[in-house]
């Protein structure tokens, strides 16, 4: 049976001169279930990366003090990687972790991310991501690049544009 999920809006708050980005989204499932989708690597790979890419974990230890590193492989063979440390993983309430895109020209541009899972009436969950960057430029860079998977999606679109000759 293929049911169609109700599509709730994704809200993004990013003030121009602030270090913070907040992303909020509600889901039609319990906090326990949604939390599991974020912390079970077999489930996470099904949705975190864009459809056109293959996601693989080198490491994924969702517990206090654990760490993670994962790759997105795109069709062209190009690969981008991300890594971080889990500061706190409390089911089914919150995940506090660091996040770094390894494709930047230099190391050390790290984002502190808190993902909160809030129980709503009717077996629903509100997920909010609070990302705090070290510099406004880091935040702008991350957002401009679409942060994680958006980087790949946009690169692919760009590649197509370049190939089609739309951009000289």
């Amino acid at each position, binding site marked *: 049976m293929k*049911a169609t*999920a*109700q*599509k*709730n*809006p*994704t809200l*993004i708050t*990013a003030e121009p001169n602030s270090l913070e980005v907040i*992303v909020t*989204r509600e*889901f*039609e*499932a*319990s906090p*326990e*279930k*949604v939390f*599991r*989708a974020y912390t079970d690597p077999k*489930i996470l790979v*099904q*949705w*975190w990366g*864009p*459809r056109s890419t293959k996601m693989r974990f080198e490491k994924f230890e969702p517990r206090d003090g654990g760490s993670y590193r994962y790759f997105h492989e795109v069709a062209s063979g190009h690969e981008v990687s991300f890594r971080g440390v889990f500061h706190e993983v409390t089911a089914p309430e919150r995940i506090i972790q660091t996040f770094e895109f390894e494709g*930047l*020209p230099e190391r050390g541009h790290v984002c502190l991310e808190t993902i909160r899972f809030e129980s709503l009436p009717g077996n629903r969950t509100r997920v909010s991501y609070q990302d705090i960057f070290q510099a406004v*430029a880091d935040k702008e*860079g991350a*957002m*401009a*690049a*679409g*942060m*994680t*998977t*958006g*980087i790949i*999606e*946009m*690169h692919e*679109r*760009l590649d197509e*544009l*370049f190939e089609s000759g739309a*951009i*000289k």
Partner: protein
Amino acid sequence: MRRDVFQAIADPTRRAIINLIANQSMNVNAIAENFKISRPAVSLQVKILEECGLISIITQGRERVCEARLEPLREVSSWVENYRRHWEERHARLDDVLLTMDDEEKKPIKKKRKK
């Protein structure tokens, strides 16, 4: 290192250079006067911008003038929209995955846990 518009705008100095020459072409010395970093450092950023397709360097007599090529920026002019779309797509996939999941976590057969 990739050379595209996203690489070009990932660096604050490069963004400032683009802003500076967007309305008025300048040579590298004139650009460098606007920055605290050294002239060679500015030259390097200009070179990267050229490789990313956001600057054309035109030789006028003995001078090499940097001219902004803003067409590629159209791609990122709606970057906040792209960012939002990226999250929308990801969350729509999570909606689908949640429908396929069991309500309760399937408990694996109990094994002796290492302490």
